């Protein structure tokens, strides 16, 4: 289902939520799955351990055929269930605590300032995606993981291929192979001489516990690199468009830096760029919203529909940066809620606080409905965003 206008969730979501909030839908692969559109139901499903995240399960309702990947791909955190998931997540979540993120603030501010310098130096019109949206999260995740930023073109290219639903199965396989082999070599180097970064510290930690699990580290690095790139980049681009299109909201943000926290939550809710990360498969019969979902059936927790549920938010299709939308499910809900969410929040706050203050005349050089939207990507966003400022 396509987005309207091009921000709003598909109109079908509103109809489904009102008339048939737990309903059977057919996926592009021809399989059937349940679609959930109510905030309450999506949260209940995601918090229920009877729904599995095992993306390698043949029963998992993927939108693209991934049979070729299933045989070799080592599951990462997002694909694990209990009892494996808890300890695996805890091994790394200490790297993403609120306090750790706060300690990164000065460095992220430097990265954002440099990106804005580059944008201004590029001259008008410049592409915000190239100069700000992509380099900021990319540099941050590379520094955090200890991956050379010089290679960012390589992994940006392959991660967009993976996220594009139209990528052919063999190209998808090739992208996975190339990224896996690149990260495999990098981790082997770090095993020989552990560096002071997330991957290096994981190696030291695992060694203290007895054994370094090379494959698991490759899979973790893969997940964090792919997840750390496109998601935040797309939120930077879309958030910029939304704020420029709503000058009253932008004025609120500029008048009171304290509002940025809530503004970021509202933008996350409003766009919900990764609405299908919240897909699961039932391992037992479970009742959700009064409907019995049987073991083995797939469930799409449509987080974008949930985040536009009028039962959870007044005037859900309006951007209201002061509303305090902290209970949104844009980062998911339950045991798998986004590991990097506080890093993403920090990056978005700093970008929006800095960009509109340093570049007060910022404007978009194209009508917003003619911008190059990622309509066929697992993560919604913009391929480019031409801007000018004088």
């Amino acid at each position: 289902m396509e987005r309207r206008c091009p921000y709003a969730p598909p109109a079908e979501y509103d109809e489904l939520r009102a008339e048939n909030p737990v309903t059977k839908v057919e996926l592009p692969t021809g399989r059937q799955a349940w679609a959930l559109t109510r905030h309450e139901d999506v949260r209940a499903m995601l918090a229920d351990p009877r729904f599995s995240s095992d993306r390698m399960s043949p029963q998992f309702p993927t939108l693209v055929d991934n049979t070729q990947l299933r045989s070799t791909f080592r599951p990462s955190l997002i694909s694990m269930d209990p009892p494996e998931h808890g300890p695996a997540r805890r091994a790394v979540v200490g790297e993403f605590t609120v306090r750790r993120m706060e300690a990164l603030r000065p460095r992220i501010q430097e990265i954002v300032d440099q990106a804005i310098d580059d944008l201004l130096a590029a001259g008008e019109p410049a592409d915000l995606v190239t100069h700000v949206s992509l380099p900021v999260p990319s540099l941050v995740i590379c520094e955090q993981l200890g991956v050379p930023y010089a290679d960012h073109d390589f992994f940006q290219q392959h991660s967009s291929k993976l996220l594009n639903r139209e990528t052919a199965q063999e190209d998808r396989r090739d992208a996975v192979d190339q990224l896996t082999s690149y990260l495999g070599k990098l981790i082997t180097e770090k095993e020989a001489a552990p560096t002071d970064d997330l991957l290096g510290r994981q190696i030291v930690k695992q060694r203290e516990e007895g054994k370094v699990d090379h494959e698991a580290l490759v899979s973790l690095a893969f997940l964090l690199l792919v997840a750390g790139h496109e998601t935040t980049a797309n939120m930077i681009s879309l958030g910029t468009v939304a704020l420029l299109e709503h000058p009253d909201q932008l004025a609120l943000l500029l008048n009171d830096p304290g509002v940025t926290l809530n503004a970021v939550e509202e933008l996350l809710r409003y766009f919900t760029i990764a609405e299908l990360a919240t897909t699961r498969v039932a391992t037992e019969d479970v009742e959700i919203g009064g409907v019995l979902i049987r073991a083995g059936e797939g469930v799409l927790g449509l987080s974008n529909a949930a985040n536009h549920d009028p039962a959870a938010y007044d005037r859900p299709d309006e951007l209201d940066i002061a509303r305090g939308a902290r209970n949104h499910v844009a980062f998911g809900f339950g045991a798998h809620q986004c590991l990097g969410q506080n890093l993403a929040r920090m990056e978005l706050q700093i970008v929006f606080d800095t960009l509109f203050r340093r570049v007060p005349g910022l404007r978009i050089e194209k009508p917003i409905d003619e911008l190059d939207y990622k309509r066929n990507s697992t993560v919604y966003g913009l391929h480019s965003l031409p801007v000018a400022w004088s």
Partner: protein
Amino acid sequence: MKIATDVDRCVGAGQCVLAEPAVFDQDESDGTVVLLTDSVDGETAERVREATHICPAQALSILD
């Protein structure tokens, strides 16, 4: 108002810390919730209620 935490359920999302840093903190090594006080009132209690609601792991509860 009394607060209880279930550290075994906690997934270290840090939502409670963002909601009320005077009451919640995270363990340095595994990110799990650390309670700085287990009894609160007034506006702090409201923010703790919100934290309980947004906790993705449903690891927080209010006892009275």
